[in-house]
């Protein structure tokens, strides 16, 4: 269905090609998962399938890309609209109309499909994606998962044979992401579409993939069976990390497979030492925090205490008030209730002093960047924090990021940009650090870096609170966990108790080793193995 024949793609002003001499074939009806580190060229690969690269983005394409026998060099993306359906990361950015059914019809209107046929197809597509009851709703009022399903329906209506999705779940919470991913697997199994999907959080989809295309850092593409490719790739979802840890040559693709193998090999994880409860005095004490938007109680009376040196994770679904709580704790959001840090309420202090007590890295970290270069950004931060010149720059180095001071912050990778904002915020030397959804758009390597950085900060006595959807990240980073729902704190405890006992928030390895308390692959180092049973394939 899709053939890449010795394809190299070079962007203008780039020293080396993003994709270098790539040849592979994706068979009809396959679900092909595209993986790779951030900035490795996943999006370029996807864009090349419908010709957006290079027709729309510029750059030079050598070799041939054939989709359903059509050469993308001669067909523009618009001419391929009924062959390839393309869905981007953020559905809201791609919406042209303002009502669901109009949005689904838009593509067909462009193709000049007769109104009667169009009417029928809109209805069919609505049913296929299970969104018939949303038909006349304004797009802006839908939830993220619904919006993404509408976006998929909108390209499906043109009846493409290939569906290309560029990280369709990166802006969604786990439930919404599951919704979208199950809709996609349904399209592969029930409709017979060929789907090419880029996804950061492999653990959610790898069991459904027929092939995996790993875009390697050198620009080559390694395409093969998921278990094989994952075993050699540097991309390590939890189950791959488990396989590496236990020396399995093939990566189990689902929790069930891993669990069977663990039982067959009778692997017993070591007992985890309970983290010693910290008895230090809390540095931040918040009581009865409330945030209201109009009639909505975003945060309804939450009590939080943060202790120095402790990393706390805050879990909960989208819109349950996690962000509002963090903003209120920082004092940047009007709220009721008391927040006391060092005897002071950050909300009552001027912004410059508030950030020396509590600092927040917001969800879209790039909002804090405005200077044209990394160097200027660092010196501006030194001035704002009243720190020695060079403080922020050296912090950035300590975070393990070495970039030229002349680089434009907008050109950095997602992980580098997050580290830069973190360095800027830490230059104020605050005793409390709040991170709002920091793992969005980060690959496994960047997440591991972040985990290390947070660990070092905590060791130096900073109290850290991280809101996240990513249970795998939460499992590795923190020792205490708070669970929020509907603006209220519904559970609080050690990460290991809370996550292993939960169905919705259990990380994959906890499910593999249940009932033994295991959170991450590092927890099984030194586990007892009794090689009596034969290794099941």
């Amino acid at each position, binding site marked *: 269905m899709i053939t890449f024949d010795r394809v190299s793609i070079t962007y203008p002003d780039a020293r080396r090609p993003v994709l270098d001499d790539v040849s592979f074939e994706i068979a009809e009806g396959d679900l092909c998962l595209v993986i790779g580190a951030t900035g490795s060229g996943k999006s370029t690969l996807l864009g090349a399938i*419908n010709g*957006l690269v290079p*027709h*729309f983005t510029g750059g030079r394409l050598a070799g041939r890309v054939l989709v359903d026998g059509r050469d993308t060099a001669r067909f523009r*993306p*618009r*001419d391929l*609209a*009924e062959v*390839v*359906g*393309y869905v*981007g990361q*953020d559905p809201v*950015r*791609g*919406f*042209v*109309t*303002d009502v669901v*059914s*109009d949005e689904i*019809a*838009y*593509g*067909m*209107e*462009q*193709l*000049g*499909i007769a*109104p009667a046929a*169009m*009417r029928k197809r*809109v209805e069919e597509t609505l049913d296929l994606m299970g969104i*018939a009851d949303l*038909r*006349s709703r*304004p797009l*802006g009022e839908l939830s993220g998962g619904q919006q993404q399903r509408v976006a998929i329906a*909108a*390209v499906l209506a043109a009846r493409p044979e290939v569906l290309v999705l560029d990280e369709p779940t990166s802006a969604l919470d786990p439930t919404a992401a599951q919704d979208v991913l199950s809709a996609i697997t349904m399209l592969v199994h029930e409709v017979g579409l060929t789907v090419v999907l880029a996804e950061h959080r492999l653990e959610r989809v790898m069991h459904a993939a027929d092939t995996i295309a790993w875009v390697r850092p050198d620009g080559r593409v390694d395409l093969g069976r998921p278990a094989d490719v994952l075993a050699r790739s540097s991309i390590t979802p939890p189950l791959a990390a488990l396989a590496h840890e236990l020396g399995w040559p093939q990566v189990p693709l689902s929790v069930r497979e891993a669990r069977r193998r663990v039982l067959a090999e009778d692997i017993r994880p070591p007992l985890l030492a309970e983290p010693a409860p910290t008895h230090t005095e809390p540095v931040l004490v918040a009581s009865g925090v409330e945030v209201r938007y109009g009639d909505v109680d975003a945060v309804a009376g939450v009590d939080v205490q943060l202790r120095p040196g402790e990393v706390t994770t805050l879990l909960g679904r989208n819109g349950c008030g996690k962000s509002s709580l963090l903003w209120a704790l*920082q004092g*940047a959001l009007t709220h009721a209730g008391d927040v006391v840090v060092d005897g002071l309420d950050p909300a009552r202090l001027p*912004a*410059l002093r*508030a*950030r020396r007590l509590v*600092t*927040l890295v*917001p969800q879209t970290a790039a*909002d*804090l*960047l*405005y200077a044209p270069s990394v160097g200027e950004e660092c010196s501006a*931060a030194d001035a*704002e*924090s009243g720190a020695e010149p060079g403080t922020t720059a050296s912090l950035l180095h300590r975070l393990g990021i070495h970039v030229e001071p002349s680089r434009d912050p*907008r050109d950095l990778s997602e992980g580098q940009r997050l580290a830069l904002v973190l360095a*800027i915020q830490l230059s104020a030397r605050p005793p409390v650090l709040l991170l709002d959804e920091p793992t969005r758009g980060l690959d496994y390597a960047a997440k591991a870096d972040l985990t290390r950085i947070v660990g070092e900060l905590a060791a130096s006595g900073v109290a850290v609170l991280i809101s996240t959807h990513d249970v795998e990240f939460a499992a590795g980073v923190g020792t205490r966990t708070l669970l929020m729902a509907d603006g209220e704190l519904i559970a609080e405890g050690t990460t290991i108790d809370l996550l292993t006992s939960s169905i919705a928030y259990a990380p994959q390895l906890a499910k593999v080793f249940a009932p033994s308390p295991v959170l991450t692959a590092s927890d099984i180092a030194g586990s007892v193995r009794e090689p009596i049973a034969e290794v099941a394939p």
Partner: protein
Amino acid sequence: MVVPERTEALKTLHPLAWWCWAIGLGLAVNGTTNPLLLILVALAMVTVVVLRRSDAPWARSVRAYLVLAVFVIGMRVLFQVAIGARTGTTVLFSLPEVPLPAWAAGIRLGGPVTAEALASTAYDALRLAVMLLCIGAANALASPRQALRSVPAALYEASVAVVVALSVAPQLIESGQRIHRARRLRGDSGRGLRSLGRIALAVLADAIDRSMSLAAGMEARGFGRTRGLNVRGTLPLMIASVLTTTFGGFLMLSTDARWPAMGLMVAGVTGTAIGLRRAGARLAVTHYRPRPWTWRETAVAACGVLAMVVVLGVGGLDPDHLGAAAAAFFDPLALRPSTDPLDWPQLNGWMLSVVLLVLAPVPLTAVRRERVPDASRTDTAVRSPRPRTHPVGVAR
């Protein structure tokens, strides 16, 4: 489930009908400064909007237009009090006058405020405010995007540009607010030109990103696939027609040759329509569920046009050439009540007809009051024993 009838009204009426109605009223309002008539028209219009708007987000915009209208009146009156020209003799109160140097002759700061000057300004401001309200009403009753869907195919690219602007603008405001909020986290108080510049730069970068992804999405979905038909002579026809229309408009406004002007305008508009239709054949774009133009649409649009014709027609009458009875009934001067000397504005019998024309869409669009909405129509078989009592023409 029973849906309130106002949702139905929007669904069944062509958006262009609402816009035609509102623009007709706007032109009618432009022809009068009678505050009583203006206030009645505004009240009638708000009534129609409140009864006939949908629950969609754009329907909430009428409040913003009301605020804008009040603001316009307030500003005009304030300026008149502070620096307006002095006319009339009825001094209401006096402000301390600031003496200005000789070169600023003709400009007055402070001083006596007369009832005549104030009334004249207020009347004029009221007219502008009600015209703004007309646009607001059209916006609330029909989403501008839906109205743009109905434009002739020849204007397709232009309408797409407007659609893109319409979708990026609110996102811009949102990202501006987000960035402004985030500035505090860095200790930036968010005030001052420097900080504004930073926000503007960040918002602009964001806007460009957003427009690029929207453009990529539209490209991938087949936007701009033209049929490539050769339509010769369309451009000259369009240019000639538009020029004719402009010349007709010029004659209409600046001379007394009303009938030739009218003729030229009609010819020009017809030519433009033909040109647009021919140019539209170039695109292969089709429309999903095009809204049918029924007698209701015609009637609602006609109400607006008729209101305009009545007001402008009466305004154009010469009282000297009318019989005594007709002059008393149609008194054209009542449309522009005198402010110097200040008279109490009169309300004539025929003005009531204008107000009725404004209100007419309410009965005209009163569709069946109870109906099962499309989305939950799975149970029609069970719940349709009720005999249909509404007119046949309602069916979509």
